[in-house]
């Protein structure tokens, strides 16, 4: 195949370096990652338009996590982590502030970690993995909130946030499962 050949490129004074031309597969993956990142950012934007749920701030549907869950299943945790990180930074700078970026990173990091572990050796379906992700996302955020305001009584929110994470995680999990059934997943990777 022509793209397997290595091309020699001469730099001024630095001798010869090898540059492997990107394979067709890699390019396809890069393109899909870009698309997924764009979709995640759009989801994040759509969510900022939705009103805050009944007097309880911080409860969101987590639409952008749809992308994270699908990426986790189709590609792997590295791709999911990279796309989440890009999405959080972009959404944070466009609509939020440094606080919201910090919160999102804490929640996303913890939830991705738990989702990866459960997916590897839990025997859960997409819905179960996503529920764990939703719940731990909220736990991560409340941990950061407790550290920020230095007040442990915030844990009174925990039951509400657990149930909210359960419901949104379940919804996102079912949706991701249905989407993955319908898109030609094996062509992507």
């Amino acid at each position, binding site marked *: 195949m022509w793209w397997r050949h290595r091309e020699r490129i001469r730099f001024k004074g630095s001798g010869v370096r090898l540059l492997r031309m990107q394979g067709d597969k890699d390019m396809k993956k890069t393109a899909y990652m870009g698309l997924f990142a764009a979709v995640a950012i759009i989801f994040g934007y759509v969510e900022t338009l939705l009103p805050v749920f009944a007097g309880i701030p911080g409860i969101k549907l987590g639409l952008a996590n749809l992308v994270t869950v699908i990426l986790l299943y189709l590609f792997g945790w590295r791709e999911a982590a990279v796309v989440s990180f890009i999405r959080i930074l972009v959404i944070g700078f466009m609509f939020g502030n440094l606080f919201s970026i910090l919160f999102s990173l804490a929640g996303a990091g913890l939830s991705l970690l738990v989702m990866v572990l459960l997916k590897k050796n839990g025997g*859960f379906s997409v819905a179960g993995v996503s529920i764990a992700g939703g719940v731990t996302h909220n736990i991560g955020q409340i941990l950061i909130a407790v550290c*920020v305001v230095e007040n442990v009584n915030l844990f009174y929110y925990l039951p509400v946030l657990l149930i909210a994470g359960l419901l949104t995680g379940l919804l996102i999990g079912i949706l991701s499962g249905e989407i993955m059934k319908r898109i030609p997943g094996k062509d992507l990777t």
Partner: protein
Amino acid sequence: MKKRDIGLIGIVLLIAFLCWFIPYVRGQFTYEKAQLRITVDGEEYGVFSLEEDQVIRIGDTNVCEIKDGYVTMTEADCPDHLCMKQKRISKTGGTIVCLPNRVVLEIVSRESSEGPDVVAS
């Protein structure tokens, strides 16, 4: 959905229930002897009675109001105003938080606001 998923849902529900039920049984959610405690940056700003209606300025950043035993945040200079959208609170355990300004309004019972062992930081 597998059996394990259902199990996971059950565990989460159980933990959520316990997190609510244990403080409830211990009588931490009551109207009686409730006071408003305001904390800024982890330090106590002041304790106020819920019985008289008043407007409290918290530094230069936030304003909260006590009316008919309910507390609401009426003004905040933060960009998102999430604290102002939170429900009014009246029972002990209720909290309103303004994260950017690190202001916490919470309802505490009279005893616990005096005891040193409950103050958490």
